[in-house]
């Protein structure tokens, strides 16, 4: 029963949606019926178009995430550990953080055109901040006494980093990762919709030109599925890595 419960509402919506289309209350030009969407899904899958676009979009998303997340993690650690480094860079970063990164799209198109760099740059920039902020916060919130204990027992600075600071900051880093994943898809969708010649966003915009509403809806659903999968993977990692933490332990 517990496993069924979360599916009742989506299934209900689907049924109502199908019924509304069936009885002509919902025009196919506004919103195609679920069966029409399923047909469109089957069509683009068979032609191979969908897989190509999913592949390129996923690659962009994770490459951008790796770049932005990597830099955010490194800077968060550095600024968490060194007051000097924080003094030097944090206020600048906070200033940049307050610019919505999507506002840079016109500039990014001028710089990179509609090439891969543009998408990677935007995704990396969007992902950078949640990871940076949460890593920094995580390092800062590591119990001082645990650090002291490590030193008292003769741990090297390197061991203190990997065995005390990093695991101590990990719960907070995971918060950043999950938040970053959300921003990653959001940024990619916008970037691909505005300027791309491949990817799911492009597929949607292309379909719009030909008034293929069903394909547009398929694209949107694909984004939702990809986002959900990424989040589930992050949660699984969280539960595995943070099994020691009662907050994350499986209930």
């Amino acid at each position: 029963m517990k496993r069924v419960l979360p599916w009742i509402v989506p299934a209900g919506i689907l049924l109502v949606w199908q019924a509304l289309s069936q009885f002509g209350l919902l025009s196919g030009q506004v919103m195609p019926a679920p069966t029409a969407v399923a047909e469109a899904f089957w069509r683009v899958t068979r032609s191979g178009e969908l897989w190509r676009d999913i592949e390129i979009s996923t690659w962009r998303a994770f490459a951008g995430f790796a770049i932005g997340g990597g830099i955010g993690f490194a800077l968060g650690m550095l600024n968490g550990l060194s007051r000097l480094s924080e003094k030097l860079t944090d206020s600048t970063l906070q200033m940049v953080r307050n610019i919505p990164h999507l506002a840079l799209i016109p500039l990014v198109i001028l710089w990179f055109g509609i090439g891969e760099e543009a998408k990677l740059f935007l995704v990396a920039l969007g992902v950078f901040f949640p990871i940076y902020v949460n890593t920094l916060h995580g390092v800062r919130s590591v119990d001082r006494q645990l650090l002291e204990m490590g030193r008292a027992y003769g741990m090297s600075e390197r061991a203190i980093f990997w065995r005390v600071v990093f695991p101590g900051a990990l719960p907070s880093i995971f918060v950043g990762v999950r938040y970053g994943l959300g921003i990653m898809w959001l940024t990619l969708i916008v970037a691909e919709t505005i300027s791309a010649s491949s990817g799911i966003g492009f597929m949607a915009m292309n379909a719009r030109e030909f008034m293929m509403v069903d394909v547009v809806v398929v694209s949107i659903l694909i984004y939702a599925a990809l986002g959900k999968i990424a989040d589930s993977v992050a949660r699984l990692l969280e539960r595995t890595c943070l099994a020691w933490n009662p907050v994350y332990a499986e209930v």
Partner: protein
Amino acid sequence: MVSNIVAQQTAVGASVDVNDVSHRFDLDGKTLPVLNRVSLRIEPGELVSLLGPSGCGKSTLLRMVAGLETPTVGTIQADGARITGPDPSRVVMFQDPTLYPWRTVKANVSLGLEARGLLRRQGHRVDEALRLVGLSQFATAYPHQLSGGMAQRVSLARALVNDPKLLLLDEPLGKLDSMTRITMQQELVSLWQRTGFTALLVTHDVEEALFMSNRVIVLSDRPAAIKADIPIDLPFPRHRGDPRLADLRRRILGLLGLDADW
């Protein structure tokens, strides 16, 4: 001064010399003196208690002996060598167990050996230490699954696994309930008797100091200076109802400025 029970097993304990140590903290540009010309010698194998009013600087003195802080003036030596930083031969047990929440009980106890690269060869000592504190069955548990007393026992095992020459106890039983506290006082004393390390115990519990130590050092209000150095020349295990302890208790409470009529 040292009772002969201790003198028999001084082989592994370190001696401690505190030479004319004064210390100040800088707080918001103001100087706060915490220790005032403290000199003290602890013989190998002794268990010495530091008693004093809350916030008098007794913990600071202990942290200095641990090498976690450097005195503003004066020096501290362990076995004749000046203490300049922390060392695994002098381990601290704090009021909080300060266990790593992401490590199992066993991995927490392994900490010191692991840090020194000795875990592979001397891993059996971890099991020994766990047995010594009666937690063998909890080796794979995580700290959040333990009670306060159990967590503090893990903290003790983590200290013991390093074969410390000097065990520094900073109110280690302060947060435990009174029944667990009494049990652990007895356990600590019997461990100390069996292993022979030197121990310095910071406490604000007069009974605890009297029950556990060879000597009780009473400190004054901040900046702390030594007010009295009282040998407790009674054999272990001691009995809490011992009239001699009651006399000493009255005297110490008097030194601390407390009325001991009750």
